[in-house]
């Protein structure tokens, strides 16, 4: 009785597949994607505006603005968390199915994280553009022609970087839990009959 014992191997992660999975998921849920995009970009725009716009040095004012930034960040994280959790729970059976077809936990984890990071990156870019426009308008009112002087915009580079980083960080933070939920989901889910 001859039997060929097969060699047990491991599958390797396919980065290009992770990309296409994340992109198609974003495309399918375009409506909600745009809404979250708006939240993230509004938050980034607000942050950049506050960093660049001329605000009084009164400590009480500064404290209030600080509070508002914190609140807008929290709202944004909650928005991302909600979107990604919905995106994951809606796809329970689909995730189970691709796990049956050989998707690794890390594949699922990374594709959800990437989906959210793409959202964060786009949101941050839009937010930065929006924030700059706001700051420019405010500066025009405040300093008149002085807004065209290079000195007015000192340190703009790092301010943009900070805003972009915050945008990306908050989407990553919001996606961490949903991604873990998706990755840990057992493939048996795919067998459940109901839609």
């Amino acid at each position, binding site marked *: 009785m001859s039997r060929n014992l097969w060699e*047990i191997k491991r599958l390797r992660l396919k980065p290009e597949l992770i990309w296409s999975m994340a992109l198609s998921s974003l495309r399918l849920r375009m409506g909600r994607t745009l809404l979250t995009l708006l939240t993230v970009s509004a938050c980034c725009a607000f942050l950049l505006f506050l960093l660049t716009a001329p605000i009084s040095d009164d400590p009480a004012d500064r404290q209030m603005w600080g509070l508002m930034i914190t609140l807008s960040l929290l709202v944004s994280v909650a928005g991302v968390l909600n979107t990604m959790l919905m995106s994951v729970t809606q796809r329970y059976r689909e995730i189970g199915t691709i*796990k049956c077809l050989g998707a*690794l936990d890390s594949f699922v984890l990374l594709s959800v994280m990437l989906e959210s990071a793409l959202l964060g990156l786009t949101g941050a870019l839009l937010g930065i553009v929006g924030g700059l426009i706001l700051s420019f308008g405010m500066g025009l009112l405040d300093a008149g022609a002085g807004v065209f002087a290079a000195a007015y915009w000192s340190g703009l580079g790092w301010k943009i970087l900070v805003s972009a980083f915050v945008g990306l960080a908050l989407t990553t933070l919001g996606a961490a839990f949903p991604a873990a939920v998706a990755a840990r989901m057992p493939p048996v889910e795919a067998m459940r*009959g109901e839609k």
Partner: protein
Amino acid sequence: MPEATAKTNADYWMADLSQAVDCTVMARGVEVVYEMGSEKIHALRGVDAQIFTGEYISIMGPSGSGKTTFFNVVGGLMKPTAGSVYIDEIDIAQLDAGELAWLRCRKIGYIFQSYNIVKVMTALENVMLPMLFAGVPQDEAQYRAVEILTRVGLGERVLHTPKELSGGQQQRVAIARAFANRPAIILADEPTANLDMRTGEEIIALMKEMNREQGVTVICSTHDHKMLDISDRIMWMEDGLVKKLARRDEVDIQIDEFEEEHRE
């Protein structure tokens, strides 16, 4: 039930050993216990079964009989609480998560009751997916996917998305996808339950043809009598145990008897 045909598991166990046929699946004393809060539910209470290479076996049983659990254990979707399951002589309890993923990818093809075609992908991409997971190069995967889709009769529809396909066509995509990596086992969970009768018959015929052509072992859970007609063997489960395991030609009358017994 006539005495002559009422064979026990042990009879088959002995018979199988003497024939020395290749087994794709071997289950020994498989027990599965679910814990629901403080309550323990015994879904399987010591199942012994051998499934031979290349055979088409149907699993029947009322809901709650442990059919689905047995299915999940054999499919590497769940580990048994006790006992062992061997797939091609490998004890699946020994595999870690990464190796199980490989097993599911290369050795097992799944066909679901509700098709489970990935919605955002075309038929072609759906069939390519398991091959890409397995490391087949893009070009080759595409070539093979078109080949298999043509085989199941969807050669003209490779670029359609699930929305543009009927239930029967979606199930054909699922069959193509299940066979894509040339697995050792096809696990089909009530593949015709959501289809009308004629489409169901076509799907059954297709599965049987693929089973013959490729020599793949097919394990299929079903309530569908037409499905039983093309099976090599039929396994009845009840209350977490294998009640009966018999060849198709031995069970002509008993299907009705069994159904009668369990009509509620």
